[in-house]
């Protein structure tokens, strides 16, 4: 998930810019707000994805935060 410095709901523009910055193909997954968006990085390896995420995190003028879109599960015992 990325948090945009400047909020937007233009999915195509968000994924295009992320593709440019990450250096791998990035597709748009879902919006959580105008600032927070979930993106899918298409990498050939875990290492390549790691590098791509590092490049996104380095683009502080575009992204306030970059977080892994993890999973939560139900809290039943």
């Amino acid at each position: 998930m990325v948090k945009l410095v400047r909020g937007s709901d233009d999915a195509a523009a968000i994924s295009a810019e992320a593709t440019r910055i990450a250096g791998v193909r990035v597709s748009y997954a879902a919006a959580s707000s105008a600032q927070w968006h979930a993106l899918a990085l298409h990498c050939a390896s875990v290492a390549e994805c790691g590098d791509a995420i590092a490049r996104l995190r380095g683009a502080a003028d575009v992204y306030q935060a970059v977080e892994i879109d993890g999973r939560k599960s139900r809290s039943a015992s």
Partner: protein
Amino acid sequence: MRKLLICAAVGAAALAGPLSLQMPSAQSSTVARVIVKYRADSTLLRKQALSVAGQQTLQASALGNRIGVALGAGRAISERSHVVVARGMTSQQLATRLAAESDVEYAVADERKRILEVPNDPLYSSGPAVNTASGSGGPVVGQWYLKPPGAAGTAANTAPAAINAEQAWDITKGSPSIVVAVLDTGVRFDHSDLQGGNVLPGYDMVSEDSPGDFASANDGNARDPDASDPGDFVTAGEAVTLGCAQTSSSWHGTQTLSLIGAATDNGVGMASVGHGRVKVMPVRVLGKCGGFDSDIVAAIRWAAGIDVPGVPHNANPARVINMSLGGSVACSPQYSDAIGEANQVGAVVVAAAGNSAGHLVGSPASCPGAIAVGAVRHVGDKVGFSDLGPQIAISAPGGNCVNTGAGEACLYSMIAATNKGTTSPILNAAGGSTYTDAFDTTLGTSFSAPLVAGTAALMLSVQPALTPAQVKAKLQATARPFPTTGGTAGIPMCTTPNGSDQLECYCTTSTCGAGILDAHAAVASAAGVQPAISLTTTTPTANQAVALQSTSILGPGRTIAAYQWSILNAGTTGAAITGANDGASVVVTPTAAGAFVIQLTVTDDVGTSASTTLSVTVVSGVVTPPASTPTTGGGGGGGGSVDVGWLALLLGAVAALAATAPRQRARAVSAASRRGRSRGRSDRA
């Protein structure tokens, strides 16, 4: 509807004869009723050649003469006790005065008890008969967690952790204007116990795993308006591709939602905290193998009424959001952003602490602004599975078994609505609606959180103006203390998580929150008065009347039944109440400068009392500089000292001048400053 009449211990005594009150004729609408019992050696008990009623009339009259109040005799209770009545004061005030009399063994307010409405849903009282052979039925104790806990130390106190929703319903059964969003696996809309008209359509916030891949969603599409639960079963193949364990469908969202919003008092199935009146709104965020953070934080915002790009506006913003889900421990920024925004628009966010057996609280429960809920056993100690730590705000029952042998019934599991399908749902029309029981158990902090969420909804039903922070504070302030006995023999006190499992243990306020949820106390707190005192005398001055006024706030539909003012600490002021101490205002006359503390206790028409205090500073009555100034220092040097009493006089003068005309403030301060400087100089030796 079955009604259970809880009777006053004495007032309900089955005594012969009609109630005949001989009411004093004073003109006042306040009527005090007190049960008075005379001492065995009381001279008032001397036999007269009269009927019992006649004797007690004389007794009341004589007793009234002693305290200067016209007393009427009411119903006889025993040879030595009867009801007395008076006008112009509260029952408590009359009881206090009578109790001080030497002839009186005790005098207590003859309080009116109310009917407690016990819902007629059959599972509320008891689960179906236990059949160990087939592994079905129970728990015998029914929905024990919603019932009154029973008086501490009595045989009725079998489940001290029960939240007492029953008495909360006596105050409110909830308002349909309050919406609780349940972020979970969706819901089985057709369940037979969710047909009360209080289940909103909600939304399905589960997005695709990757473009065109809907494996987790299991409904063939991404986000859509259908919040129904298609099942979250995971096949052996999916366990590999999706990366989680093979499992049957949980119907988890139906379970959690039913605890908050199942139709209640409808003669069907189970009861819910929200009594079927509070609205519940399923927001589907969990599919197979859980749900993505991005969908959950989108749902938090949407549920609270904050727009999410690509999703239609939510026309029914939730005041409470329940999340019986969790994961990684740290609260990541997308959660803190979303929860903060939800709080900002007035949504209370409740989250389950997690079930990793005594480890750190998971996210989103660990996030600022969330009310993290831990789980306690029926006796009030921490249940083994519950996580713990300082992030937990409060604990509530989460189900526990006691019996753990193979094939044994779980004695204190929760009861929740579910579906019989193990993969896809079975329609209600085909008999798919059912309930969990003592064998198909409902256990976890997942089920503690809805009890808190439902209680928060009841609180907001009676006082919609409460902020999320106020709801949390009231939940915590009214929570019952954790017990330190009653658990399994030899269990330790809970400690801060240290990486090792921590199973059953005695809770502390630093590990399990402020205490055990008490729905009745929390709702009473929200509904009742919020006492406040305002000082109407601008500059309280010695030997002058100081006026104080109640500016208490009441819940909707409530009225104040009684005020009680008292001086808690007169300090050096000699302050005493002049005149009546049971009105909306009071007059206090201090005799010297200093500070006194006054307390106001307000009781509303449902018997909820609350108190507040105010410290009042009193200045001396005459602002005149002393004729001569004793020195306080023994030698020269320094800047001298300022006498505190003199400084108080100066400040009082400043306050008086400032209050009379704002334009004079600068000059007054200037004058005070000059006096201060002058005083300082004169102190030099």
